[in-house]
């Protein structure tokens, strides 16, 4: 791990967690026979996080760093027994990734990548909130990644 790439490594760790969470979420949604748009959102999110993960790994390697791998396991914080609970997990994952990416933007190395991750996660979080039935006013955050500024 290098100091130069520390910000990107944090973002990559967040992407690993997101890939894990989306993988679990997709499987649970299928099992629960959730509405097709929810399953599609989970699949689309999984694909997007995989692409981002690979892009971050490549960037860290280009900065002579060693990309951190995923953890052996992650703890799901609550039972995924309904589609609504799964959506709540996905929204939390995206909000968390927004926070990590906003923090990483402070580091100049890889800043454009971190900003890209922040934008993409913020959009997915808003779309998931809309899917969960929230109105527009409740689906968007004024300062994605910086919730304390609200």
């Amino acid at each position: 791990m290098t100091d130069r790439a520390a910000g990107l490594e944090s973002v990559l760790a967040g992407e690993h967690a997101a890939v894990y969470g989306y993988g679990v979420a997709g499987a649970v949604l299928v099992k629960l026979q959730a509405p097709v748009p929810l399953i599609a959102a989970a699949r689309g999110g999984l694909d997007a996080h995989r692409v981002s993960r690979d892009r971050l790994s490549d960037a860290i390697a280009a900065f002579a760093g060693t990309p951190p791998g995923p953890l052996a396991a992650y703890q799901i914080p609550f039972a995924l027994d309904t589609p609504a609970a799964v959506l709540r997990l996905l929204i939390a994952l995206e909000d968390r990734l927004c926070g990590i990416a906003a923090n990483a933007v402070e580091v100049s190395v890889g800043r454009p990548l971190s900003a890209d991750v922040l934008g993409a996660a913020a959009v997915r979080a808003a779309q998931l909130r809309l899917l969960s039935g929230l109105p527009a006013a409740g689906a968007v955050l004024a300062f994605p990644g910086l919730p304390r500024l609200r």
Partner: protein
Amino acid sequence: MRLPTTLDRRSALVVAASGVGAALTAGCSGSIHPPSPADAPSAVRTAGSAPADVDPDLRSRAIADERRLLAACAAPAGQEPFVTLRQLHRDHLRLLTGQAVAAPAAAPGAPAAPQLAAAERAAATVRRADCVRASPSLAPLLASLAASAEVAAVLLTP
């Protein structure tokens, strides 16, 4: 703001096998320490490194864009997503200027969503480019504004 070590973050990510730590979604957003709303405008003005001298210009550009977008969202009262977008831009301006911003007068006609979406996307592109040039203290705010503009564009797109 403080950037926690990667070790902090990974320990927050948790290994279920170890039986310790937080859940999958715990941690990192809570580790951010941005300025409070009250002191944020002065804090974001204060840069921590060499590019600090560009910050005033970048902030001024962000303020000008937010004012323009706010005016463009002057939809009839109650019409979504324009009401939400107006509130977003007012929140952005309040933080950037340190002053409350009045809502613009509602325009009689329906706003042109495609044009507004394009304007939001353009603003996102500019903010993201500006964030690369900004000081470490201003960059997260500009990146967040870029992300917010991307979200706004999505809301405006059927």
